[in-house]
C-alpha cells in the first residue's frame, strides 16, 4: 500500500487486488474533536459514503466502484487521471461534467463538496470522486448546493456550459436551478436589490 493523498478528512492509499489497482480511503482521527464525536462522525461518514458509492455505481455515474468497507475505511477501484485543478489537465468539457452530476442527482445522490478538486479527467471522460460529504437525498436544496459550489469555483462561461449539460440529463432541473438562485440571495448581509 502506498500513500497517494492526504486530504483534510482522509488518507488515501493505493495498492493492487487481483490484478486491479484499488484505493483505500481511511478517515483519520481529528485531534481537535472530542473522541466520541470524532469517531461517531467518521464511522457514520464511512458507512454513508459506501452506500453512496454503491448507489452511484448502480446509476452508472463515472465514479470509483465500491469493493468493500471497514469501520473507518473504504475500498474502491482507482481512477487514473488528472484533477481539474491539476496542471496540464487540458481543455475541459463542462457540459459533460453537468451530465455526470445530473445522472447522480437523478439517483438522488447529492455530492456535498462538488468542486474542481473532486472532479477527475480520465481520457475523454470525467469522473466524480470523494463522496465523503455526499448524501442520499431527494432534497432540492442539497442538489442546488452542489451546483452552487461548482459555480463559485469556475468562470461564468464554463458554468453556462455545465448548466446546459445538467439540464439535458436531469429529470427535473427547474426546481434545482430556481433554488440555486434563491440560495445565492440568502448569504449573510447580501444586498437584495437589483442595482
Amino acid at each position: 500500500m502506498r500513500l497517494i493523498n492526504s486530504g483534510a478528512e482522509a488518507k488515501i492509499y493505493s495498492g493492487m487486488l487481483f490484478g486491479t489497482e484499488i484505493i483505500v480511503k481511511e478517515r483519520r482521527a481529528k485531534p481537535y474533536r472530542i473522541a466520541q464525536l470524532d469517531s461517531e462522525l467518521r464511522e457514520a461518514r464511512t458507512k454513508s459514503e459506501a452506500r453512496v458509492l454503491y448507489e452511484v455505481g448502480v446509476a452508472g455515474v463515472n465514479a470509483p466502484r465500491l469493493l468493500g468497507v471497514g469501520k473507518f475505511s473504504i475500498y474502491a477501484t482507482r481512477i487514473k487521471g488528472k484533477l481539474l485543478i491539476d496542471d496540464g489537465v487540458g481543455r475541459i468539457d463542462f457540459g459533460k461534467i453537468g451530465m455526470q452530476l445530473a445522472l447522480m442527482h437523478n439517483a438522488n445522490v447529492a455530492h456535498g463538496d462538488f468542486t474542481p478538486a473532486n472532479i477527475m479527467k480520465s481520457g475523454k471522460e470525467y469522473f466524480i470522486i470523494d463522496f465523503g460529504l455526499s448524501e442520499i437525498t431527494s432534497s432540492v436544496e442539497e442538489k442546488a448546493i452542489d451546483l452552487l459550489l461548482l459555480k463559485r469555483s469556475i468562470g461564468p462561461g464554463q458554468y453556462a456550459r455545465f448548466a446546459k449539460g445538467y439540464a439535458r440529463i436531469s429529470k427535473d432541473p427547474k426546481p434545482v436551478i430556481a433554488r440555486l438562485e434563491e440560495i445565492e440571495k440568502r448569504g449573510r448581509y447580501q444586498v437584495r436589490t437589483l442595482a
Partner: protein
Amino acid sequence: MLVLGIESSAHTFGVGIVDRGKVLSNEKMMFNITDKGLIPGKVAQTHIKNAPMTVKRALESAKIKITDIEGVGYTRGPGLGPCLQVGELTAKMIAKRLGVKIAQVNHGAAHVEIARDAAKMRDPLALYVSGGNSQILKAVEKPFKHYEIIGETFDIGVGNMIDNFARGAKLNPAWGSTVAKMAQNGKYVRLPYTVKGMDFAFTGLLTSAIKMLGKESKEDVCYSIQETAFSMLCEATERALLLTRSKELCVCGGVAQSARLREMLAMVAKENGARFGFAANEFNADNGGMIAFLAERMLKSGMDSKIEQCGVEQRYRIDRARIA
C-alpha cells in the same frame, strides 16, 4: 497620523485612538444586556447618552486633546441601523468640527485586520466568528484589496446561535461564556452536525439542542452544543487551509474569545503546518481601536469620504469593502 475610531454596530459604543498603527487608547461603554437580547432603538438611546463620555475617556487615556486628532473613522456596517447611526453622527460631528478627513470602515474587516496585525501575519486565512457573522476569509488584491468570503454560515452566526441557546436554557447572563462555564462538567450527547464543504449551518443544531434541554442535563447540552459548533467551524477552516495552502491562520470576532475554540484551531493549524494567532480579547469584543486602526490605513491610502457621502449600511458585506 492620530486617528480616532468609533464603533457602534451593536451593544458596544467604543472609541479608540491610533497613531502609526499603534492603539493608544480603546474605551467602551456597553448597553446592559438583559435576558431579552437587543432592541435596536433602546440600545441607540444608550449610545447617544454614552457617546460624549466615551470620546472624552479615549482622549484622556491617550493623553491627547481633541484638536490633536488628524482623522476620524467609524463603522459603516454591518450592524443595527439605529446603533450605527449614532456612531456615524458622532464621527461626522468631530470630523466637521476639526476639519479632518473621515473614513467609513467595515466592521468585520476591522476585526480581521487588527487580529492580523496582533498576530504579526502577512496574509492569513481568517476565521471571523461573532454574533451576527461566521465567515472564513482571505484577502485578495483585485479589483481592489478586500476580503473574499471562502466559507460562511448559511443561516445565523455562531455567536447568536449560542446566545439564543443560552436564553432558551435560562442561563444568566445569557451568552457564550456562561455556556462555556456550564460545559465544563458536561458529557457528550449527539446533536446535528452540518458542514457543506467550507460552509456550515447552525439553526438545526440550535433547535435540536433546545429540544434536548428537557431530556438531558443542562451541562451536557452546553458541552455538546459548544463542541459540535466549534468542531464544525474547525472542519470548514481546515478544508479552507488546505484549499488556499495558507500557512497562517488567525481567529477574530467576539467568539474568538473562547479558550476552547482557540485550543481547537491551534490543533487545526498545527496539523497543517500553519502558524496560529489572534488579538487580545479587547480587540475581539467590539471596540473602537480596531476601527481607528483600519481607518488610519484607509486614510493614508487616500480612501477618505466626503462628509455628505457618509452613511450607514446594515448589510455592508465584507467582500464589498475596500481595505487599502
